């Protein structure tokens, strides 16, 4: 790595050093309480998978270039130069961390390893050493935001084709639009993923609840966040925010996508609309009596996987359980409790990387498979696209013999007339 490159990368590093980040980088006492926090370490007990060790890889570079100790007495903290080798270590640390923040529950100080890993991810982007596919996907999303008109036609045709499926689940009142798009003055903007499974059941439930809603042009997922690129993350987010403002909606409802929910809920800043997850919205409909569910629809025992970004990091913990109370008499919560729920092993962009990460994803999530098996449930429900894909892969790999389902589609399947 030449001097110019290093300087560029250190500038990127510097840009991440806000107050919280400095606290996190200065404070770790390497007490090792986080040893048992990481699902990767619990599945494959190697030192490099301990949260504190991952963070220390970034911290050593911090000490070298940004801390007096590293400059005066480099060996005391084993500070480290930023080299090609260091980049490789950063890659391994950052892309074996799913950003689930379970370690934050263990740390006596509450150090956020995901945030420290965001430095590693940004340096990799700066060095063009990040997984290219994530950047490509992010750029595609951004491109789509810039030239909506080109995509509009195809999108609308696609949506029209889904309407019959929606009606099959819920027959709307005559004259109502089945999937409203671009409706100014709608109460709720629903941001889905590209794929019928993310749109059809949601539309059926909105219509059943008599919601004044409209579907977003854009897909919710934020690949910019996966790859740890703040400017791309913001551009992708901006598309939806400006659409919501243009349509003057009161609420933006994010589909079953953990990253999208956390980014919209916590990164969008103060906006004139409320941000909800579809799980929260469904729970609200049930509570207000706007929809009614048939409890006899699902015969099997059910367990629920808390998506990290929605539960531990987004605060949506009671709502899915409330919904499931209306779907089954045999709900079996996982142990330990939601705060300690293991990551599915697919977060942080690992699922989006597909086959490349499959082997690691399976090995690193053994504890998750064990946690699911221990419930003895026949149905494994979740509310996140990433988790769903990963859990389905785990189901095959570990022969868990469970039916992996989306919570929202179960709600749609169990809809009954009031």
């Amino acid at each position, binding site marked *: 790595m030449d001097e110019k490159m290093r300087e560029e990368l250190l500038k990127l590093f510097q840009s991440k050093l806000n107050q919280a980040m400095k606290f996190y980088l200065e404070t770790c006492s390497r007490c090792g309480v986080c040893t048992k926090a990481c699902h990767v370490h619990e599945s494959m007990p190697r030192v490099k998978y301990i949260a504190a060790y991952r963070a220390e890889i970034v911290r050593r570079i911090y000490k070298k270039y940004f801390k007096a100790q590293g400059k005066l*007495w480099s060996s005391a903290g084993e500070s480290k130069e930023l080299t090609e080798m260091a980049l490789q270590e950063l890659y391994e640390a950052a892309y074996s961390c799913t950003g689930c923040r379970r370690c934050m529950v*263990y740390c006596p100080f509450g150090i956020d390893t995901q945030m420290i890993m965001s430095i590693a991810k940004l340096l990799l982007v700066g060095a063009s050493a990040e997984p290219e596919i994530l950047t490509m996907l992010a750029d595609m999303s951004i491109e789509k935001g810039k030239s909506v008109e080109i995509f509009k036609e195809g999108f609308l045709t696609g949506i029209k084709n889904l309407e019959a499926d929606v009606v099959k689940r819920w027959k709307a009142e005559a004259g109502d639009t089945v999937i409203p798009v671009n409706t100014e003055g709608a109460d709720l903007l629903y941001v889905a993923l590209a794929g019928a499974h993310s749109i059809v059941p949601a539309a059926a439930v909105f219509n059943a609840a008599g919601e004044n809603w409209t579907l977003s042009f854009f897909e919710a997922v934020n690949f910019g966040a996966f790859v740890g690129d703040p400017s791309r993350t913001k551009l992708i987010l901006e598309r939806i925010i400006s659409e919501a403002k243009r349509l003057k909606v009161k609420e933006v409802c994010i589909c079953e996508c953990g990253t999208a929910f956390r980014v919209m809920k916590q990164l969008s800043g103060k906006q004139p609309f409320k941000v909800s997850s579809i799980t929260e919205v469904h729970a609200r409909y049930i509570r207000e009596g706007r929809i009614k569910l048939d409890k006899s629809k699902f015969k099997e025992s059910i367990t629920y996987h808390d998506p990290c970004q929605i539960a531990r990091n987004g605060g949506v*913990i009671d709502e899915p359980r409330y919904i499931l109370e209306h779907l089954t008499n045999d709900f079996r919560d996982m142990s330990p409790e939601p705060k300690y729920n293991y990551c599915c092993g697919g977060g942080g962009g690992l699922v989006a990387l597909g086959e490349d990460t499959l082997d690691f994803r399976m090995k690193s999530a053994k504890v998750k498979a064990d946690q699911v098996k221990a419930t003895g449930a026949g149905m494994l429900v979740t509310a996140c696209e990433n988790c769903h894909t990963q859990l389905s892969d785990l189901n095959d790999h570990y022969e868990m013999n469970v039916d992996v389902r989306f919570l929202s589609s179960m709600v749609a399947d169990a809809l009954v007339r009031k």
Partner: protein
Amino acid sequence: MLVIALTRREASVQAFYYFVLIPMVYVAFAVFILGTVFQLVKMFGEKKHPTTLQIFPEKKPAWLWALHDTFLLPTVRRHNPLLWVFLMLFHVAFLLLIIGHLELFAKFSLFQVVAHDVFLGGGYVGIILSVALLFFLFRRFVSPYRDLSVPEDYYLLILLFLTVLFGSQMDWARRWYDYSSMTVDDYRTYLMSLISLKPAVPPGVDGAGHSFMLVLHIFFANVFLIFFPFSKIMHSFLALPMNKLRRG
């Protein structure tokens, strides 16, 4: 010849005693106070993180739970109970010793609510601290803590251990010699002279048989104070704001 050599050694020892007891103390406190203030001002001056960093489920009021997390270490209690016992003993003992040292400066009626001799605990506090430090040190020799540790972690523990070892055994050592030497009043004279910027070492302090222990105690404490602002011991100040971030 021998007599001259001995006197020379005496003189160099005396010079070393003087250096540790006066100039080095000033330097140590200057580095400690200025360094810590500088680091904190710099860190708290950085812009705040734009979003929340809290985790759920949440409990209100967040500041109260942040205090709870900071001072009672509930996560350590749950995940490493043995470490928790030693951490609590260590931190409480450390606090008691800070109080003990303050009482060497002057009488504080606040601390004498529970009447006691200076130092409180009769040497046992120091022993608890030493044992805790040895526990912290030896656990770092075992995997995975060994792999997580960097030299700083060992240096700090060894420094503190040496400081506490010589400090806490002073009272005991005093019994070997004349128990009337190096009394609380001698310490007060010495410490007040430092504070009033008219530094002097009273003969009671550097002339006793076990003065070397005091000098070593102060020497290691000085080194520790100088290291403090540049080390992970800054967690003393950062633990609370960090726990507040987690609690939202």
